[in-house]
């Protein structure tokens, strides 16, 4: 944890986005997490992603629950909206916020404890609603804030710093999300921003529920030998199957892709996510095949990463319900509040 604030000085050659902002202007307070925490790298990746997407800070909402992960929204986009909710209740609060104002970009930052234990039910139903948000799980397999007990994502056989190895079956957020029907599912690693940043960008622009499960090592309680969520273990068993490149609107696809392996997915603002299969047999558009592949590789001890499943045909919550585009805050008060006479008419219908 750092008491020394990051000084306001910056590189004079820093690029600016179309709003004239530098990435520094999407930063937040100085992190109070442990030095070397994977979560700080995820924070840096989020900063880079929203900076490159030219998101106006006042059009971004940062949502979180409780845990080390849930502290991180304080460390980016200090000019944006934020809501630090009750443990595991971030999906409900985001649902409410999104229901009232669908024009904001919602980014929820949660952890394996917040999403897979106390908030598992909330997580599941946010997927079911296809809530339009980017849902990031900073997944380190331990409860860092309470001194490193195993969480629900700890693998069988992974060793704690002290005590016995874990024996319980882990909950894998990615295969769970595939089973539940999430429409954008990715896994990445805090130590690989080249992969992580475009995955977050795709998730922010995806219409519907986008999950990014990020292996984010706990440098204090889970980065030792024998841990399956350490920096070294993740790097060793890291298996990147589908690479995603974000291509902004109005920009031609420049990178060279092998014939047949590139798959551009058009996003609602005209930008594209270009998928490039590194593993030729992997099919990120088939739930069944993706699930089978992921379970097989999981059993082989591999950590499959990349954009693992995407379905851009399903409608998000508002479209399913036929809601209006206008945020309630901009909607005329007389229409929001029909008044006493109108209310009496409605009540009369039930008499």
């Amino acid at each position, binding site marked *: 944890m*750092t*008491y*020394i604030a990051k000084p306001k000085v*910056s*590189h004079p050659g*820093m690029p600016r986005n179309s709003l004239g902002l530098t990435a520094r202007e999407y930063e937040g307070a100085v992190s109070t997490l442990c030095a*070397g925490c994977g979560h700080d790298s995820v924070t840096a990746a989020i900063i880079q992603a929203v900076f490159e997407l030219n998101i106006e800070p006042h059009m971004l909402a940062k949502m979180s629950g409780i845990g080390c992960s849930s502290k991180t929204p304080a460390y980016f986009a200090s000019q944006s909206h934020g809501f630090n909710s009750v443990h595991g209740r971030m999906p409900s609060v985001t649902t409410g916020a999104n229901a009232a104002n669908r024009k904001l970009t919602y980014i929820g930052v949660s952890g394996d404890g917040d999403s897979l234990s106390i908030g598992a039910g909330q997580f599941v139903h946010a997927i079911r609603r296809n809530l339009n948000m980017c849902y990031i799980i900073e997944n380190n397999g331990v409860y860092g804030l309470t001194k490193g007990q195993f969480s629900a994502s700890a693998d069988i056989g992974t060793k704690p710093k002290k005590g016995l190895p874990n024996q319980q079956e882990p909950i894998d957020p990615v295969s769970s999300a595939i089973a539940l029907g999430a429409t954008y599912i990715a896994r990445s690693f*805090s130590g690989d921003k080249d992969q992580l940043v475009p995955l977050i960008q795709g998730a922010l622009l995806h219409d519907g529920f986008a999950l990014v499960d990020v292996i984010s090592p706990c440098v204090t309680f889970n980065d030792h030998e024998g841990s399956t969520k350490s*920096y070294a273990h993740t790097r060793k068993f890291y298996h990147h199957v589908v690479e995603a490149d974000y291509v902004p609107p109005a920009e031609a696809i420049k990178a060279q892709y092998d014939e047949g392996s590139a798959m551009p997915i058009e996003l609602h603002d005209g930008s594209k996510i270009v998928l490039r299969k590194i593993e030729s047999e992997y099919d990120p558009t088939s739930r069944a095949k993706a699930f089978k592949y992921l379970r097989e590789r999981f059993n082989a001890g591999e950590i499959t990463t990349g954009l693992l499943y995407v379905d851009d045909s399903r409608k998000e919550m508002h479209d399913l319900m036929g809601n209006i585009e206008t945020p309630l805050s901009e909607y005329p008060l007389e229409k929001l509040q029909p008044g006493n006479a109108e209310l009496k008419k409605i009540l009369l219908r039930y008499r």
Partner: protein
Amino acid sequence: MKPTDTSNPEYFHKVVDCQWACPAHTDVPEYIRLIAQGRFSDAYSENRKSNVFPGILGRVCDRPCEPACRRGRIEDRPVAICRLKRVAADHRGDVTASLPKAPQQTNGKRVALIGAGCASLTVANDLAPLGYEVTIFEALEKTGGLMRTNIPQFRLPPNVLDEEIGYILDMGVDLKMNHRIDSMKDLLDDGFDAVFVGTGAPRGKNLEVPGRYDSENIHIGIDWLESVAFEHIEKIGEKVLIIGVGNTAMDCCRTSLRIGAKDVKVMARKPRGFFKASDWELEDAEEENVEIIVNHSPKEFVLDDGKLIGMTFELMEYNVDEQGGIDRGTVTGEVTIPCDDVILAIGQDNAFPWIERDIGIEFDKWECPVVDEETMMCSRDGIFFGGDSAFGPKNIIWAVAHGHEAAISIHKHCHGESLKDRLPDGVNLASQKMGMHEWSYSNDYDPAARRLMPHVDLKERFKKLDIEVELGFTAEQAIQEVERCLNCDIQTVFAAKLCIECDACIDICPVNCLTIAENGDEADLRTRLSAPAENREQALYVSEDLPQTSRVMVKDEDLCVHCGLCAERCPTGAWDMQKSTVLLPYASDEAAGEQQDAAAPAA
């Protein structure tokens, strides 16, 4: 790229831009920290070790350190290094204890130094404490050389000169004033063990245009300044033209204003940006309402009945190419500007009419002696040159640097050792971590702008020639200015084997100077870093292969503010902030080494 060899003393030395740029390699960040701690005497002594004349240089140094200062690349203006040096000098207490002292017994070796300027005085400063019998021959009635004759008193008060020169002369140096050396041959006949020539570049360049010799009111800048300094000249006409726009021209115009001139114009042949004068000297002159007129090339003097009444100039037009180069220009017209006096300040030459050409001292086609840049010895054994007399006009701090090197050579020469077999530079590294979140230096970046030097009121300052214009920083200004120093000598030192590639340092770095990347050649790597790395003068610090991915950590040294956050955020201590101390050998170190060798039993 190969991993950076940080054991090479040059590597970290170069990161300390100011110290690297200083010819005498003054440890700038160290003395600035001492000032910050209120240890003015220690800051003065730290300065004196390398530059010998902190009070003098704190006023009139050409300050190559300041354009080099990293702060100037991060925001506009560098740390006011030079003026902080003066702070150390102004506020120092009794420094007697830290001054070098001559031993009771001399070593019997006699060294002659010609000229009592900064180069010779530095040699005396280094050799007297080793027991040498040093004799300085000075042609004029006062010491200091051009520091006294060419730099006006309103910039450099005589008492400052006297005090700092006194520290050296008080070591028992034999000073022979009004003693011009007219023949090197005769001097050599006196049997000195070594001779050092520190006679400067005493001949002001002339301007051979019509009318040059028809009036008494046309002066050569450096001679004129010397005459003013010795009070042989006490006034000048109301309208004065200065030809040339170097630092001597600035001293001439400002001196003129103090002895009777009302309207002073500095005539420049070229446009702004091509002036030789330092920016700050131009600023100080313009503050005194000196007019600088560009694109005027002198053609002839205009006289009326034997009296100088003006000067004719050709109006010039130049083309500047994309690289900033300027052509020879074309003449577009002519103009005559009225004046009472003209001062020529267009440069200086070396002149050695007193050195016989048949005594084994080789001269080049410009009539300059051929001098070895490392040893400062000419082609005749035992004769050394330094300061402007060695390689033409430079500045005081170069003369000091030459003096130190010459002193080492003279010592080796007198002991029959090889001049080339010199002690190498060294570097010490020491961690500055004091505890949790605690570093031994002030690592918080202070965004304060450069402090402005307070000046004597514009009316007041012209009343007398010797009113020092610059007042020196106040205590408040000094406190603020020291915090602007980035402590570039507190180095970021990386141990690849400890790195777990968590990216914490990369994410926290405020100026994006860190990257973990696949290795490549330098040109390629520079295109793949976190932020543009376009300053090729500044090194890339490349690590050994990292344990987990075999990539490398790359640091672009260019804009690092040495805030220490990389080390602060590193969970494994792979980054550490370590103070680098560059160890530069002086004559005393060479002597100490010999004593150790002598004391050691034969192998």
